[in-house]
């Protein structure tokens, strides 16, 4: 193959990053290049999937976000015959995979990633496409005889070669692996003490077992699907890696259990007495954390809500004195009226020549008339509160013209204005709220997309069944939660409940992104209904939209806080989830690579031992790689 050969391109696509390949390609990982489908004029003709790096190989944006794993394990287990001729590796320039070595392939991450498998549970390579892999996958489908997987519509088996896969699968599926403390499971446990030595011993035994049980019965479609599941579902959605890249682990397991969920019954709201108790003689709040805790646990008594919100929304600093607050209020009032005057005094001509301003104004006019008109405070024709709503939003446009006005903002302001009443104070409280929420209104919706991704990761960890179901039913993007996240459940709750709900979230307790745990909690509560009757994205959206007005925030808070503790204390908690919740990442000591292997192995062992139905397990779950830590910490790039 090192000879000069006549090759012509059947298909090429550039802008493709090599994400994973054998170790010898390490230098090219994360490089930008071009993929080809080539045909060599040999007899018989041979086709290849080929990737060549570009000469300039920097794409820092991608590199920072993405992770890379060098597939070192392949060297120790089975090599892929033919995919990497030895003479090639010396003058490595391109990655070349003969079609005959490709046993299945799969697109993932919104079709941005294409993974090619060798049919033995090994990944040959992963490509990340700057656009998408639709064309590439389309051509592969055209040039090879493929069948789609029943379980994962993004996975395709190359048909001619599937028999081998089937047999291998079956052999695993049918292994009657001992469930007692003997045999390979003792070996598995030994990983904890002697990981490396035990690895090799285990390999040989598992392999022996495997081959002994081969050549049994016909292989059913179901079993093939099971293998598929082992390769793919774990990849797209599992407990070790939510980024969806863990094909080099192949632990097919019942999901590790979360700790029991503790109960957190709601307490009484923060009372006037308690609030006063926390204020010293100058008017400073003492022990802010304890105040926030009380609010987190029970909300705020309506009688002092108006006052306390000003602190929660950073209109007043917690430690300000009476005097300081008085000065602050005066200054902020001046500032507000300055900004208000700016738009109030704009002339007709100015306005005519200022389309960005006009656009913002007309959006506000339209939305103000459609904001909470059933709430008494805003009801009726010529309601003066609507005008105040309008003026505050217009002034906010002058305060932050670039952000301007985006639909949803009037919903965020309305409860504040209703409670605080005063125009100036409402404005500044709204500004405080917008500090938390502004990324929801990004021009490119990056903030929303980021949240969908985080929500997806949390759900995959907490409720993998539901998460799998959503992935398989066109709902992996979580768009059906758009309204929830955009305005923090404002549209799902009554005005009273919204107030009780937001003030709890404003405390920032018990962790970052607690509102996403609320979403996880509600989704988990609705799990059965969502997964019923093969619901697709239409029914899922409908069900979620119809929850409006039916949510009981007290029970949701109770459970969501419990969910937080379950996650925090889960042994298999990933750094990904930790990062989302703002928990400290796991210490990365020198032996963490081996301990995480031990953890994986014990998961596999638990699963196989406890699950009577077709235990599947393969050697690939043992991976000793220097990249272990970076792998675990990795967050896949934005794929929305």
């Amino acid at each position, binding site marked *: 193959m090192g000879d000069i050969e006549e090759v012509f391109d059947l298909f090429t696509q550039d802008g493709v990053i090599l994400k994973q390949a054998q170790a010898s390609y390490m230098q090219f990982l994360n490089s930008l290049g071009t993929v080809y489908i080539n045909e060599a004029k040999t007899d018989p003709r041979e086709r290849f999937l080929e990737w060549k790096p570009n000469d300039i190989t920097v794409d820092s944006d991608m590199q920072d976000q993405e992770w890379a794993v060098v597939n070192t394990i392949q060297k120790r287990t089975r090599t892929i015959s033919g995919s990497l001729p030895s003479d090639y590796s010396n003058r490595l320039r391109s990655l070349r995979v003969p079609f005959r070595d490709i046993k299945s392939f799969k697109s993932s991450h919104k079709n941005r990633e294409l993974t090619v498998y060798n049919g033995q549970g090994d990944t040959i390579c992963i490509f990340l496409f700057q656009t998408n892999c639709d064309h590439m996958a389309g051509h592969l489908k055209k040039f090879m005889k493929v069948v789609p997987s029943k379980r994962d519509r993004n996975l395709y088996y190359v048909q001619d070669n599937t028999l081998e896969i089937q047999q291998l699968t079956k052999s695993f599926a049918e292994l009657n692996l001992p469930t007692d403390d003997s045999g390979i499971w003792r070996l598995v446990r030994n990983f904890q003490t002697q990981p490396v030595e035990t690895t090799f011993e285990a390999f040989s035994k598992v392999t022996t077992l495997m081959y002994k049980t081969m050549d049994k019965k016909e292989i059913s479609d179901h079993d093939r699907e099971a293998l598929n599941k082992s390769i793919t579902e774990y990849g797209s959605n599992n407990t070790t890696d939510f980024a969806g890249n863990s094909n080099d682990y192949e632990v097919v397991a019942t999901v590790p259990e979360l700790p029991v969920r503790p109960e957190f019954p709601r307490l009484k709201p923060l009372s006037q007495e308690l609030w006063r108790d926390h204020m010293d003689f100058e008017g400073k709040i003492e022990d802010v954390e304890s105040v926030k805790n009380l609010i987190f646990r029970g909300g705020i008594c309506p009688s002092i809500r108006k006052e306390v919100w000003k602190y929660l929304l950073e209109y007043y600093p917690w430690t300000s004195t009476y005097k300081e607050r008085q000065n602050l209020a005066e200054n902020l009032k001046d500032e507000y009226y300055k900004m208000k005057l700016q738009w109030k005094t704009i002339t007709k001509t100015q306005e005519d020549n200022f389309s960005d301003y006009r656009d913002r104004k007309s959006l506000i006019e339209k939305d103000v008339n*459609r*904001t*909470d008109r059933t709430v008494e405070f805003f009801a009726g024709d010529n309601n003066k509160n609507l005008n105040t709503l309008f003026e505050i939003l217009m002034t906010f446009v002058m305060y932050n013209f670039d952000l301007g006005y985006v639909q949803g903002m009037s919903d965020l302001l309305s409860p504040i204005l209703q409670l605080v009443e005063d125009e100036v104070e409402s404005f500044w409280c709204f500004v405080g709220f917008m500090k938390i929420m502004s990324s929801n209104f990004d021009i490119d*919706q990056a903030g929303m997309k980021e949240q969908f991704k985080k929500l997806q990761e949390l759900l995959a960890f907490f409720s993998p069944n539901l998460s799998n179901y959503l992935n398989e039913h066109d709902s992996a993007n979580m*768009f059906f939660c758009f309204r929830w996240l*955009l305005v923090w459940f404002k*549209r799902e709750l009554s005005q009273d409940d919204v107030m009780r709900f937001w003030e709890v979230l404003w405390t920032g307790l018990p962790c970052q992104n607690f509102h996403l745990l609320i979403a996880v909690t509600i989704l988990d509560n609705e799990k059965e209904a969502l997964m019923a009757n093969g619901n697709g*994205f239409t029914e899922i959206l409908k069900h979620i939209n119809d929850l409006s007005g039916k949510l009981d925030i007290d029970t949701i808070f109770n459970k969501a806080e419990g969910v937080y503790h379950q996650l925090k204390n889960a042994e298999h908690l990933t750094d990904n989830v930790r990062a989302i919740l703002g928990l400290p990442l796991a210490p990365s000591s020198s032996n963490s690579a081996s301990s995480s292997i031990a953890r994986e192995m014990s998961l596999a062992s638990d699963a196989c031992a406890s699950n009577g139905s077709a235990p599947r397990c393969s050697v690939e779950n043992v991976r000793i790689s220097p990249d272990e830590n970076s792998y675990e910490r990795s967050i896949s790039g934005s794929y929305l």
Partner: protein
Amino acid sequence: MAKTYDYLFKLLLIGDSGVGKTCVLFRFSEDAFNTTFISTIGIDFKIRTIDLDGKKIKLQIWDTAGQERFRTITTAYYRGAMGIMLVYDITNEKSFENIKNWIRNIEENASADVEKMLLGNKCELEEKRQVSKERGEQLAIEYGIKFIETSAKASIRVEEAFFTLARDIKAKMEKKLEASNPPKGGHQLRASEPQRKPPSWLSRCTLL
């Protein structure tokens, strides 16, 4: 199982914020008008089943938020739409000018053969009119689509608009079916749309 409908059509309402999409939909699905309506956040849909030439047609009509910014999200729902109502407000010049952008948006995100129709809403507000009926007609001719002026508030021609769109889709679909599927017993709707996975409307189109 009882046969509840023969066809399921997915329709979409798009157009600038405030042109009356939600009101038009509410008029059609509930025959009512509500001035205290809230603005649409995200996306939702309503269902109404109509009779057309002896066939029961279930219309699943999707309502979207209009603001530019949310398009990356709302366009995700364009997939599988068979008919699109492009709505503008006859009292708002800008919303009419933007129809061009919306059409471009459709071309980029919806299937090429989606049936389109232009609606000039709020037509009872004659005294505030900024866009003449002729201009609406002209634009529709330019794009080769049908045009109707409606009022969700005064209940003018809203029914007609949806029935027209549904009839056109039905005709187009039946034509396709015949072409790809010479007369034979039973419906073979699969043939009408070559897709990897039949979308949900399709799988439910078959006779129950």
